[in-house]
């Protein structure tokens, strides 16, 4: 399995990972090698095997729908780099938005 630089750049975009050029090339090589090892799985016929997402036999774990104490707004915002008026502040994402956001 060999990835191209374009593959690496596409996946980095999906993952929102900013990668310098030399790091992209290194990742291209390393990921290609790892994916090569993973190809061993193709030796197994899994046509009629159900996938396992998690191992517990639990289903529909629910609780009563009632309000419980939770974090205060202040505690929830305490680690945020930018807040405004009791909210998390983010940069504008729509062109032409005039409000200063962060």
């Amino acid at each position, binding site marked *: 399995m060999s990835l191209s630089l374009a593959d690496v750049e596409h996946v980095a975009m999906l993952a*929102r*990972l900013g990668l310098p050029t030399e790091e992209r090339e290194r990742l291209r090589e390393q990921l290609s090698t*790892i994916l090569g090892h993973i190809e061993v799985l193709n030796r197994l016929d899994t046509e009629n*095997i159900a996938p*396992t997402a998690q191992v*517990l036999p*639990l289903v529909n774990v629910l609780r009563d729908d009632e309000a419980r104490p939770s974090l205060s707004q202040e505690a929830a915002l305490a680690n945020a780099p930018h807040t405004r008026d009791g909210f998390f502040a*983010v940069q*504008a994402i729509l062109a032409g938005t005039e409000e200063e956001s962060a």
Partner: protein
Amino acid sequence: MSSTSHDRAELTNLTVAQAHTLLDERQISAVELTDAHLSHIATVDNRVRAYIEVTSEGARGQAAVADARIARGEAGPLTGIPLALKDVLCTVDAPTTAASKILRGYRSPYDATSVRRLREAGAIFLGKANTDEFAMGSSTENSGFFPTHNPWDLDRVPGGSSGGPAAAVAAGEAIAGIGSDTGGSIRQPAGFCGVVGLKPTYGRVSRYGLIALASSLDQIGPFTRTVEDAALVLQTLAGQDPNDATTAPETVPDYRAALGGDLRGLRVGVAQEYSVDGMEVGVQTAVDAALAQLAALGAELVSVSLPHTEYALASYYIVLPAEASANLARYDGIRYGNVVEGATLRETYERTRGEGFGPEVKRRIMLGTYALSSGYYDAYYVKAQKVRTLIKRDFDDAFERVDVIASPTSPTVAFRIGARTDDPYQMYLADVFTIPANMAGIPGIAVPCGFAEGMPVSLQLLGKAFDESTLFRVAHAYEQSTDWHRRRPDLAREPADLASEAAD
């Protein structure tokens, strides 16, 4: 209350059970025990580097409260016991970093359930112990801050990802440690450092407040000097938690009641597949001797087959990165963590994540994102989940015939620092015997079983889901019939080598 009859070396060498007895009989105080550990940490941790943050003040405060509780006659088994917490467990009174620059300085607004349970039991937190960044690694070299050194040989790794708490317990810097195990991250470092390490059944211990790596694989468990201590710590950690819907409703048994007795009538499975290329002779020799010892204790050794073992590593390295890439999407510099501003929101995300995460974390996010991306999801992710079913079935079939399965914990002893950092796949092979248990959700315990090249060798015992009691019974019988668990590394030696170690 203070006594001169217990010196520092003695106090930092106790088991949980021994310390509890001394505290309960007022032969020592929790403050004295805590101070002995803090003083020992001050002496040796510049070489071992087990801790990211030592919380001296908080520990002394907890110790004073523990002493008051002991004085009232309300001491539980963990009251006044000094612990090291892997820094992926959220604590309100100390920073929680996952050893990542992206979380440096982060203060959790809540305690992990496991931390809360330990706190309520009166345990003392000496500090936050080192780990590979976001628990991704097998050597603690991927820590975003500094590597931890193996107390048995400071030029070698302590294993990982929970290398910090493992090294702390081995070096006398804590009586017990708490780690997390996603593919071996408790058992493998326990083995490399010559201590006991337990990965409980998936769902036995709440993951609430554990910084998530792979949510279907992660489990919290103890590092201790004896099997009895592991049983005592699990007793406090285990149980259903309304804050973690994946905790199981099964009753938590009295684990210590399982200890004692011989192993007559017990069937120990030995799998041919747990013998791989690259297995060190010294490891094989020590593990073969341990199997013979189990037989001498009355157990019947039974050959079993786990035919899909060779596929476990490959399927794990799809399932884990896929889940990790989703879990780590939350680190975007908006709600918490460190931010690197860009001209646009998109650029802020990319710079924050690109500069905040280390190389292994980026590698796994990339691998996981790729495996989940359009066009590859079925070929990689669903395929790996199907193989996971086959691995689980292997264990289901084997446990029809045996009570536990024995193997080496790792194919090698602790390797040298730097030896595997250039080849990620070589590093992944360190976990080849531990990964299948996480894929199947079953419990596993690592117990010291000898030495090779002067380094500890470890026996792994795997059990049926929710049958930690049988693991404790077998591991305890083995341990009590050998002396390996009494060996301690000598950190007083080699002062000439220390200057370079301290320079990290």
